[in-house]
């Protein structure tokens, strides 16, 4: 996807961000070490966390029920701190396919997936996935059958979302770690399915 709008303004906003950061450090609101610690914490978060939750939900129906009831608590149960935002886990079924977006900015379940991909922040994805979700998913190579309902979740306020994709067929013999290997970042956002067993 082409993203000239973001690319053009990036230099300007980056400079503004640096200037504000320097001012806040000078004013003693936080220190350079605080910034470094937060950057390290952010770098430690990656889609492997979401994948672990999905694999556990696939093998443990009671955990799945807890995750659907209270996503934040289910994340904490596996040792992933969620912070003040609330996590909602959206279950794909043979009848319903879920996909997430933030049309207003780029809200993303960073506590579980880390930094969002560039395309997630592009105005192309943000404006079109609510308008023509089937076409957008097709562009990701994901064809949703006509009789499956699509639910687009626009993350506009204090909730964060993660998709619980369908467990691929033929994975009965895999253990939890192998199953987690099938769960990609894109399948947690909902623009792709989990990988087939042979691709693990």
């Amino acid at each position: 996807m082409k993203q000239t709008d973001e690319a053009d303004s990036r230099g300007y906003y980056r400079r503004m961000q640096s200037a504000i950061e320097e001012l806040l450090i000078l004013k003693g609101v936080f220190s350079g070490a605080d910034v470094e610690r937060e950057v390290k914490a952010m770098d430690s978060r990656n889609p492997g966390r979401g994948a672990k939750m999905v694999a556990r939900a696939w093998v443990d129906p009671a955990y799945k029920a807890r995750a659907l009831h209270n996503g934040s608590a289910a994340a904490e149960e596996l040792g992933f701190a969620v912070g003040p935002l609330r996590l909602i886990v959206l279950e794909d079924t043979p009848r319903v396919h879920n996909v997430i977006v933030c049309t207003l900015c780029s809200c993303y379940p960073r506590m579980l997936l880390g930094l969002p991909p560039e395309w997630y922040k592009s105005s192309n994805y943000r404006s079109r996935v609510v308008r023509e979700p089937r076409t957008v998913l097709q562009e990701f190579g994901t064809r949703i059958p006509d009789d499956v309902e699509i639910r687009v979740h626009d993350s506009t306020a204090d909730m964060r979302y993660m998709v619980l994709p369908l467990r691929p067929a033929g994975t009965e013999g895999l253990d939890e770690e192998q199953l987690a290997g099938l769960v990609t970042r894109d399948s947690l956002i909902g623009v792709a399915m989990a990988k087939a067993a042979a691709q693990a």
Partner: protein
Amino acid sequence: MGAPEPLPARFAPGARVQVRRADPPGHVRTPWYCRGHAGVIERICGSFANPEELAYNRDGLPAQPLYRVRFSCRELWQDYAGNAGDAVEIEIFQHWLEPA
């Protein structure tokens, strides 16, 4: 003095609601594309300080109930050609909602 009590929820899950067709200035977190449209309360998310106030360094209290509202794609987009069950779900604060 403690924080004021959160506002009581006006709508229950399953209730039909309509988003106000308003265009206030400043920081707004109700997407343009759902304004004026009708949907159904999917769930109550809890109560949160109003982000339209927080954006200006005010306390945003009393906390506002936040809902997830489900809109049919065909309600949002007149020419929508996909499955009639396709839907968009959006988090919307109570002060943007009216009974439909």
